[in-house]
């Protein structure tokens, strides 16, 4: 999309969150460590109560980690002061929630334009961008419909467009297809994947639907708060720019001849990878 843009990467180290304290303490996320690279569309799967939403909330700066760090482009977002969190979420994160994504009394277009407001006024840039995004997600014909008049699938597409309005570096998606039938759900997720790819940003989607997860580049699995990344190295496949980024993040992976062999193995593990 925007070629001059910096390609974001995410590194999560020893991230943990516990609810409550003492006997009632719940360790919702335990020592999660993983990375994401430009254009990465990752599915986060796991049974209910495994800690997916908690992890997503920490990445989206909605919840403070009780331990560990989240680096986005090298910046530790756990260290952001409270007053900067709203701006961080507005400018760096794109959220798509399960439901209630849109302001009901605004039209689809206004829901997008709202994100581009400066001092209460919608900028011309935001106007153009909103229409382009609605076009990209195939809901341009519904631009003037109120959010309440949209179908479930249209609503989620508008929500994805809204999440992309401010050119986020990390798109966080929580069960985007919960309210859709599987066919429509798949289309929405594919549209989302395509947007992440086109922008070379980071996409993380929580889902309990294995079929839906299989459309992602990789799958992070959660079980009782523990994240396991069986396909960690898949991200190393890519162009030279990605390699450079990955070098900084996971230098150990590039040491020695074993790495090249491993890359080939991993590449073969990912048959649906286009390119």
């Amino acid at each position: 999309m925007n070629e001059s843009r910096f390609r974001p990467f995410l590194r999560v180290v020893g991230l943990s969150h516990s609810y409550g304290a003492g006997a009632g303490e719940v360790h919702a996320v335990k020592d999660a460590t993983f990375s994401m690279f430009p254009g990465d569309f990752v599915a986060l799967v796991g049974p209910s109560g495994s800690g997916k939403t908690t992890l997503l909330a920490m990445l989206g700066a909605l919840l403070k980690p009780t331990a560990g760090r989240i680096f986005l482009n090298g910046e530790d977002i756990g260290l952001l002061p409270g007053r900067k969190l709203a701006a961080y979420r507005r400018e760096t994160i794109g959220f798509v929630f399960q439901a209630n994504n849109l302001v009901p009394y605004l039209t689809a277009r206004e829901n997008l334009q709202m994100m581009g407001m400066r001092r209460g006024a919608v900028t011309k840039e935001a106007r153009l961008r909103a229409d382009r995004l609605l076009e990209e997600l195939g809901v341009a014909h519904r631009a003037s419909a109120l959010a309440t008049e949209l179908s479930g699938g249209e609503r989620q597409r508008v929500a994805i467009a809204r999440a992309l309005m401010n050119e986020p570096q990390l798109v966080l998606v929580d069960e985007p297809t919960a309210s859709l039938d599987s066919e429509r759900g798949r289309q929405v997720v594919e549209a989302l994947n395509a947007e992440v790819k086109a922008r070379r940003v980071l996409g993380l989607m929580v889902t309990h639907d294995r079929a839906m997860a299989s459309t992602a580049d990789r799958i992070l699995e959660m079980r009782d708060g523990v994240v396991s990344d069986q396909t960690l190295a898949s991200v190393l496949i890519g162009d030279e720019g990605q390699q450079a980024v990955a070098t900084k993040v996971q230098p150990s992976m590039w040491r020695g001849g074993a790495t090249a062999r491993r890359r080939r193995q991993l590449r073969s593990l990912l048959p649906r990878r286009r390119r």
Partner: protein
Amino acid sequence: MLGTREIRRRRLPFALITAIISLVSYLVMMVNGLGAGLKHVSGSAVLSMDADAIAYSEDSGLSVLFSEFDDETITRIVDLPGVEQAAAISYVPVNYKRADGERKPAAFFGYDPGTIGEPEVIDGRPLSYFEDDGALVDREFLDAAGLHVGDRITVTVKLTSRTFTIRGVVDEGYFFFQPVVYVLRDPVNELLHAAPPTTVPLVLQPILAGEIDPVADASSAKDIGMPPVRLPHAGEVDEVKEAEAIPSAPLPFRQKATIVLLKGDHLPGITGAGFRLVTPQVAFHHVEGVAIQEATVNALSSFGYFIGAVVVGVFFYVFTIQKVQQIGMLKAIGMTNSFIIGNMLFQVALLGAIGVGIASAFAVATAWFLARYPDAAPVLVDSRTIVLTGSFVLLTAVAGTFFSARHVMQIDPIIALGQQQ
């Protein structure tokens, strides 16, 4: 954008709250208008007197009903250092009878032409020095009562009747809930004390009349230092008046007065033997009933503001509760508290302004309608009442959203992810 769009697309609830704001501000405007009107009819005449200070007799409790000065005290007041100008005023509440027989109360103020006690005549003509049967009538009262310059009114007090002809129109307001009629001081004194009018101090009358020889009869002269109050028979009054037909040189003050108006610096606060000087404002607040009436009006309008704040507050609080999920989402996608609260305040201000605007129109219309009936509530809705009441309603409405604003701040954006707060 958010605020206006929401109003446009959720017309009914916002129309309701606007209607309520406008009803509340109409009510408060009417109460405040009534307060202003009552203030007007209860003593605007005192406030419009051209004086820096007003002298009341010491034991009057600043009431014109009990204030009474004799010539000697008046002279001492006028001679106070700092007094530049002075005017004695005599007051008597009367029931006047119109030519058509209708009886109505009025406040008669007696003044001396040429003094600061003389009201400004806006229509007709002023009274001449000896025009004992002339009257200047307040404009509003004239209109309301359907009287005209040239009409005659008859008053009777303490068995003394006098007929006055309306010569001029003044804009002096009301006193003690009665329209003000200005006449010369002699006729008022006559009605008030049932004493013969005079242009010379009372103490000198017996001497001039030859009844007493001050040189030959020293003890009598001493006696007349305290002139006896003698109730004349009805017939006598006219006789004396006849006898006085030849005008003598006008003296600055004629025998008795109710109050004395003074101009000069640093006069209010001075007290002396038998008198006390206060500002017209203080005098006004001591007009019987004014203080309690102001307290009542203030209590009512405060209550109105309070109701307005509560109603607006509850309304917006309910809105906020209904929108918790949406507000959580907005916060999660990076909208700040100030943005969300700002939108809410904008809505309150906009709806408040519309509501106050509607209320103002109705209040002005009501006041105009009531003003056409002299016996209706004295509601006085002027631009001051509207602006003050309107801004205060707006302020209290905005204040009413305090709890909603606090609630917005407390909403945890994590609820957007469907988590418990």
